[in-house]
């Protein structure tokens, strides 16, 4: 199932939802950048505008998929309650199966319709972040200054008390971006160090999303054809069920998934010895 097109749709749907969180994140970043007078400019207006645009597209996709998935849920439940699983040649079950197939195809269509816009937006955000990362961290910083930036440029070496996200966590994308938003919006004392991590995380996510979108588009024709074939036989395949579950878990969350966000470090640095040898 690894290469199932639905798996990829699911991933794209997750990316879309995740990007929706950027709507408010973009505003916060802009406000913070203005307030802090950043020494590194990872989120200039152009990047924020790209993010904002991507957020709009993502929100559309999320809305469209929520509706169709909700109907899929209801039809699936009806299918199971009617004990249609395995019941062949039952006219009632065939009808439910056909409805399920129709909704399934509708979901494909929604994804197919929105993917080009999504691709454009994601690639735009990725390209602008790529340029900023290359310029601000790749070309302007030495590895040592990068460390200092990540530690918060605190000459005494004390820790920040704000929590920061672990980079490539196992979190669902939307949850990760919600936490980005919380991090940026609710930590007034934040600075470039957090932004460097956020920028890196977003960039890597965008790269991944971009790859997935490209692969999804390649698969969409095949998936549509498969769906049509299945529909014509009135069958609800396990693959379809699994894919719908995957999309749901990404869109609406997996209650069993544990958050992988590091808590704030213990701020017990008062009176810590500083050696004259310390660099």
């Amino acid at each position, binding site marked *: 199932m690894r290469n199932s097109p639905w798996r990829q749709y699911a991933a794209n749907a997750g990316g879309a939802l995740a990007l929706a969180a950027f709507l408010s994140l973009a505003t916060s970043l802009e406000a913070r950048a203005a307030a802090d007078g950043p020494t590194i400019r990872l989120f200039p207006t152009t990047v924020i505008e790209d993010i904002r645009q991507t957020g709009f597209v993502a929100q559309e996709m999320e809305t469209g998929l929520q509706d169709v998935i909700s109907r899929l849920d209801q039809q699936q439940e009806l299918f199971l309650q009617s004990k249609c699983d395995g019941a062949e040649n039952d006219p009632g079950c065939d009808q439910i199966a056909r409805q399920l197939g129709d909704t399934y195809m509708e979901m494909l269509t929604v994804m197919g319709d929105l993917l080009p816009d999504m691709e454009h937006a994601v690639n735009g955000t990725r390209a602008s972040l*790529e*340029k900023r990362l*290359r310029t601000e961290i*790749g070309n302007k910083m030495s590895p040592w200054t*990068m460390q200092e930036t*990540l530690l918060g440029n605190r000459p005494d070496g004390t820790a920040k008390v704000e929590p920061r996200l672990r980079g490539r966590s196992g979190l669902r994308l939307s949850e990760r971006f919600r936490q980005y938003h919380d991090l940026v919006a609710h930590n007034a004392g934040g600075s470039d160090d957090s932004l460097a991590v956020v920028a890196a995380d977003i960039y890597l996510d965008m790269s991944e999303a971009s790859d997935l979108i490209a692969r999804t588009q390649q698969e969409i024709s095949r998936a549509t054809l498969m769906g049509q074939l299945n529909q014509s036989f009135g069958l609800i395949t396990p693959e379809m069920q699994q894919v719908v579950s995957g999309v749901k878990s990404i869109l609406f969350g997996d209650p069993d998934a544990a958050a992988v966000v590091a808590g704030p470090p213990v701020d017990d640095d008062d009176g810590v010895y500083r050696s004259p040898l310390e660099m």
Partner: protein
Amino acid sequence: MITKLRFSALLKLLPVAAVLTLGACTSTPDLVCNGPSSNNIEVAIGQAKTAMREGCATYFDDYFADLMHIAEGDPKPENKRAFSDFLMWASDEGILNKRQAQTWYNRYFAVKFVSLMGDYNNCSSTCPRRDDVMARMEIELKHKEQGLMRVSGDKSGYYRADRLLQEAELVLAATCSACEQGT
């Protein structure tokens, strides 16, 4: 494990002993480099200094390792100062140069990574050897675990170093990918 006479030192002394034995007329006493015998870090540092003053400075690395091991038996924040003073003494004595002393100290007792240093920018200096840098940082984190956590009892410092490593890995992954796309 601390021993009265470190095995590595004994091995190193074998050629010296052989030469001294063969040279019947010599009056130079055998050089025996004992490891520190005390479990009190201050006393042990004194013993190490004495031994190094008396000709065992070549084995600085071994003495440092022995002292770290002894200090693990009584972890406390003051140990940072003790080791800082010891390294500065070594620098003053000419056993280490200033840069080496800094490197030793920072490798074990500071949050930042000496493995991630360089005067040139990340695209040109770090990215081409990113895997190597990350591997070195992983090793350095083990040293920091010993120095910050087990010797100094500085959990917070160690966790920050651990976090810094992970964030550096993430930021470098993104940055190096961006650098690569720009070439």
